[in-house]
């Protein structure tokens, strides 16, 4: 402000007015609400209806949840404590949570499934986060054997002798690679098979008798609850991705024999409901397999669920492959890469990146489908909820069990979905 008129014109104000607040309707919460909730009669109506629905839901569920009983020993006790008032009886969870989580796993061994779960995250870390040193992938490769031993126990030499089969395959591959490429691939497949059929059993029994090491053996029929869902889900998820990739590549290839086989497998398994495959598993296979725990139901279910998810996975990945421009394949050829190198270095990184949402979708679907095993008598959380209700103490309880089971599944599925969003952001799949 200049001083020019300061003393000449008496009516000119010579200091600034203090800034007044913006109109109430143009700031803060009011503005946000006016813009987002009440901008026009249609939106206002929707807002009011939504508020009514929320209020109705809260007022009917709220007291039931807030008034819940956590310490009673039976449904009848819950009712006595509530004395006619409405309220949930979560005592069934405090009473039976260990069964819903672990099934009939011996309580003094609960540390083993817990440790397996902790180690799972350790083993997953190098796979999920590329920032970690690549050498840690050795841990991930060893994890299936460690996990098996921790969960089932028994002689420590059994998983070791099985793992050595893969070493045998690797050695056979390396040796035969000097002779012929194709022969080396056959060696890599036949080596482990021959090892498991003829050598592994003897090594196992010899070492077990020489040095009996191992954890207490836990039979498969002690497994249940969320443990079984996790075992089936995680085995299915981690096996279905590689198998799905191979099936997708097989379907894309022009080999006379391989292509029809892959197409047949994919179309057959996709064309049959999972529940049919599971029944087939538990009913039909019994007639061929020796009775007893040798080839137990959990293993059969894992195989079927894996096959089922693989067929879906193959189609998801085929979508990713189809989205790649032909130029990428030609560029790989022009660089002189062989088939596997081209796939590993050029095609797959791009195809998988495109397919991430579909892949995670299949994973989440597979994980939730594990609850279907209830129909073949495996006591997963849903199956156990029936068994718990068959206890006269808890007969008649309903929502509390399903809320707990739903929350457990939500945690895992939400985690998977968040990770996939992180991965997509990191890889910027949308080419923006």
């Amino acid at each position, binding site marked *: 402000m200049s001083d020019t008129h300061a003393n000449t014109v008496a009516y000119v104000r010579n200091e600034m007015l203090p800034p007044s607040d913006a109109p109430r309707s143009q700031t803060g919460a009011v503005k946000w609400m006016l813009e987002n909730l009440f901008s026009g009669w249609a939106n206002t109506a929707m807002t009011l209806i939504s508020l009514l629905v929320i209020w109705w839901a809260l007022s009917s569920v709220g007291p039931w949840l807030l008034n819940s009983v956590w310490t009673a020993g039976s449904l009848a006790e819950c009712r006595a404590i509530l004395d006619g008032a409405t309220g949930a009886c979560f005592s069934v969870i405090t009473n039976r949570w260990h069964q819903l989580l672990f099934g009939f796993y011996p309580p003094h061994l609960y540390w083993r499934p817990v440790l397996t779960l902790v180690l799972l995250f350790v083993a997953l870390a190098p796979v999920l986060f590329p920032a970690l040193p690549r050498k840690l992938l050795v841990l991930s490769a060893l994890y299936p054997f460690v996990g098996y031993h921790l969960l089932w126990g028994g002689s420590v030499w059994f998983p070791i002798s099985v793992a050595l089969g893969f070493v045998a395959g690797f050695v056979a591959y390396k040796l035969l690679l000097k002779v012929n490429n194709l022969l080396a691939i056959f060696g890599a497949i036949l080596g482990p098979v021959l090892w498991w059929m003829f050598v592994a059993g003897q090594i196992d029994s010899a070492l077990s008798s020489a040095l009996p090491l191992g954890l207490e053996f836990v039979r498969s029929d002690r497994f249940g609850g969320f443990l079984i869902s996790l075992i089936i889900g995680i085995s299915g998820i981690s096996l279905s991705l590689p198998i799905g990739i191979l099936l997708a590549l097989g379907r894309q290839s022009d080999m006379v024999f391989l292509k029809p086989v892959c197409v047949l497998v994919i179309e057959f398994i996709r064309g049959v409901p999972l529940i049919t495959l599971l029944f087939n598993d538990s009913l039909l296979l019994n007639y061929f397999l020796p009775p007893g725990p040798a080839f137990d139901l959990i293993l059969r279910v894992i195989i079927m669920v894996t096959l089922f998810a693989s067929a879906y996975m193959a189609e998801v990945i085929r979508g990713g492959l189809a989205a790649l421009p032909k130029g990428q394949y030609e560029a790989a050829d022009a660089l002189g890469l062989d088939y596997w190198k081209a796939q590993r270095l050029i095609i797959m990184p791009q195809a998988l990146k495109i397919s991430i949402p579909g892949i995670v979708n299949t994973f989440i679907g597979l994980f939730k489908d594990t609850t279907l095993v209830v129909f073949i008598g495996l006591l997963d959380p849903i199956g156990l909820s*029936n068994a718990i209700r068959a206890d006269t103490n808890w007969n008649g309880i309903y929502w509390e069990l399903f809320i707990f089971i739903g929350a457990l599944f939500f945690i895992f599925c939400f985690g998977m979905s968040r990770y996939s969003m992180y991965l997509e952001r990191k890889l910027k799949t949308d080419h923006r």
Partner: protein
Amino acid sequence: MNKSVFLGTLAATALVAGLAQAQTTLETVKNRGELVCGSNTGQAGFGAPDANGVWQGFDVGFCRALAAAVLSDPNAVTFVPLTSQTRFSALASGEIDVLSRNTTWTFTRDVDLNFTFVGTNYYDGQGFMVNRELGVSSALELDGATVCIETGTTTELNLADYFRVNGMSYEPVPVDTAAEAQQQYLAGACDVYTTDISALASSRAAFAEPGDHVILPEVVSKEPLGPVVRHGDDNWADIVQWTLFALIAAEELGITSANLEELKAGSNNPEINRILGNDGGFGEMLGLDNEWAARAIAAVGNYGELFSTTIGDQTPIGLARGLNAQWTQGGLLYAPPFR
């Protein structure tokens, strides 16, 4: 490649399975050191795991008695939970040794499926439960009612038959499990809940106000439930059958788990002596030892004791003996003589 390995595995395992089947069931059980018993996935009072994962119940108790008779250890049993769809093929394929799971004895199951029903351990029948407020006192007043019915069971067919015979109409509300049926019935989605009377009683016991619901007097079907074994091993069928009869006869003759030791020392009733192995060598005829029945009774008590500790009047299930009383007391339980 994969296919040939699979077929090879199948062939090899079929061979192994064939070898395993060459043994009798009794030998298999003894070699294994445990009995594999097909049980319910969970039915109140009849078979369910408790908080410690130990199976309890009426049908479970029978398996424990059988294990005690054959293996001298009532806990040497593995229970395989089976649904109503998987139970028969589990038995036929040899995955289980005996099925003790609320299974109704019918012609086709016995003859066509090649099973042997060794007897009846519970006489059940289908009934109806309604809210007392409806003021219904007979099933014949249910014309036009909505009925909660578990799908895929014989009860569904029995219901249709009963309403057709009596010229009444009904509207079915299909449900999948007993728990769902309870929810629907309590929410008023159906006027009537129909299933076996034993299940109705255990459902009603779980309600907040059991007194508000009545089970109508009509019983519209015969449901004799009992243990089942495969055709083709009559010795094993005999063992299972006479273990059941031993429990029933023990009640008739007054042998209980309390006075068992005393009676084992000798009694002036020759039939008691024959059952408890003091006379006649009956156990050896079965391929067991002579104390088999005494061990079975010691494990779970006689039929009456097993009934009252699992599903009887003093339990929350609260079933009356009714048809399941001894023949001397107006019931249908009638064990052939041990002679």
